[in-house]
């Protein structure tokens, strides 16, 4: 095999073989190291081939599967150590989740309680951000309500903490919810002090890392009304 960068066809063929699992691990490692485009090419193949899985005739699983899933996600259920290890959560993470939770939570955030920020847009509609503190930070879902983002623009979400520059969190769409994780290192402090803003940016978002377009909505978090913990 040549040590030069493979041409486009060679790259596509090798990435396809990798996506099918036909190459051994050493070869894949070598290809990844040699060509920065290899990972992207493998992902593209996974997307091309995944409909093969989606086109199979659906077969309803036995009811016991859901009961087992439900038991495993219900707080009273005993934890299965093998399961947690499987997801890379070691003993330390388990300890953190069980005992030291408050130490890493943003102050003022109650585990399991949702906070909501409703960003009413000057251009019509609203983005509703629901956030919840977890052991490792904050998980947030932003849902559009009657929002239309012009085809030649992007709506970009910004996180504004006291005495800090706004930080870009990502692009929002009018068609579906967007979920994001904010690590505890980036969002220390009470959720009530967190402000979100949406600005209109060129397609793909602000090219500079600073909001360049008009801010069309902003809001702070408040506890969700009548929120019951589900955790």
């Amino acid at each position, binding site marked *: 095999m040549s040590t030069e960068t493979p041409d486009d066809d060679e790259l596509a063929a090798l990435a396809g*073989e990798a996506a099918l699992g*036909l190459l051994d691990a050493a070869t894949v490692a070598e290809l990844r190291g040699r060509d920065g485009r290899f990972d992207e090419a493998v992902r593209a193949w996974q997307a091309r081939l995944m409909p093969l899985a989606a086109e199979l005739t659906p077969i309803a699983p036995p009811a016991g599967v859901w009961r087992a899933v439900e038991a495993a996600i219900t707080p009273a259920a005993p934890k299965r150590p093998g399961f947690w290890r499987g997801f890379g959560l070691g003993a330390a993470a388990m300890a953190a989740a069980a005992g030291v939770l408050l130490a890493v939570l943003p102050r003022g955030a109650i585990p399991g309680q949702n906070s909501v920020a409703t960003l009413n847009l000057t251009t019509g509609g609203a983005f509703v951000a629901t956030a919840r503190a977890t052991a490792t930070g904050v998980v947030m879902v932003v849902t559009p309500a009657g929002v239309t983002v012009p085809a030649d623009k992007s709506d970009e979400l910004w996180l504004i903490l006291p005495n800090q520059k706004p930080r870009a969190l990502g692009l929002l769409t009018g068609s579906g919810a967007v979920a994001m994780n904010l690590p505890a290192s980036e969002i220390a402090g009470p959720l009530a002090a967190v402000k979100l803003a949406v600005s209109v940016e060129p397609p793909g978002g602000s090219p500079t890392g600073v909001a360049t377009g008009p801010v069309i909505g902003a809001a702070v978090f408040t506890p969700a009304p009548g929120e019951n913990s589900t955790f």
Partner: protein
Amino acid sequence: MATVQDEARAALTACLGRVALRDRTALRELYQRTSAKLFAICLRILSDGTEAEDVLQEVYLTVWDKAGQFDAARGLSPITWLAAITRNRALDRLRARGRRFAGLDEAAEVADLAPLADQALQDGETTARLAACLAGLDERAAAAIKAAFFGGQTYETLARLADMPLGSMKSLIRRGLLRLKACLES
């Protein structure tokens, strides 16, 4: 026609968003909408009901844990994301059984699917297109590509099953992959 698919996709995306917030009813809804599809993948790969049930359970617990990593803004379809998790878990199980499956490693990690900016992942349309393009390939190439996708087969096994020399099988698949890519991109 696209509307029904768009609606299903939006509903699944919203569902995943709620699962990320640890909403158990949302996981239940997700399960009701997708479990038959994902169970079919488990059965196709594992050919064993009990193992398929185990893996399906693992898949939904993975989703419970990682729904926050699904990023609708990148244009990835939720069912494609779920199918990828399912295939990876089922192939992991195959490998654990002792059959050879090598090569993807980190490249196969679910998280790696997230940055995929492929706006063309409209489920029904993409499925029909892939089927049409596969039908345009040499029959043996299409069969080998499918077998590898679902089975984690080696080139050696594929060649033996098709009663072909190893080198011929390799060039058959490589040519098939390139033709498939050209067809899908045309």
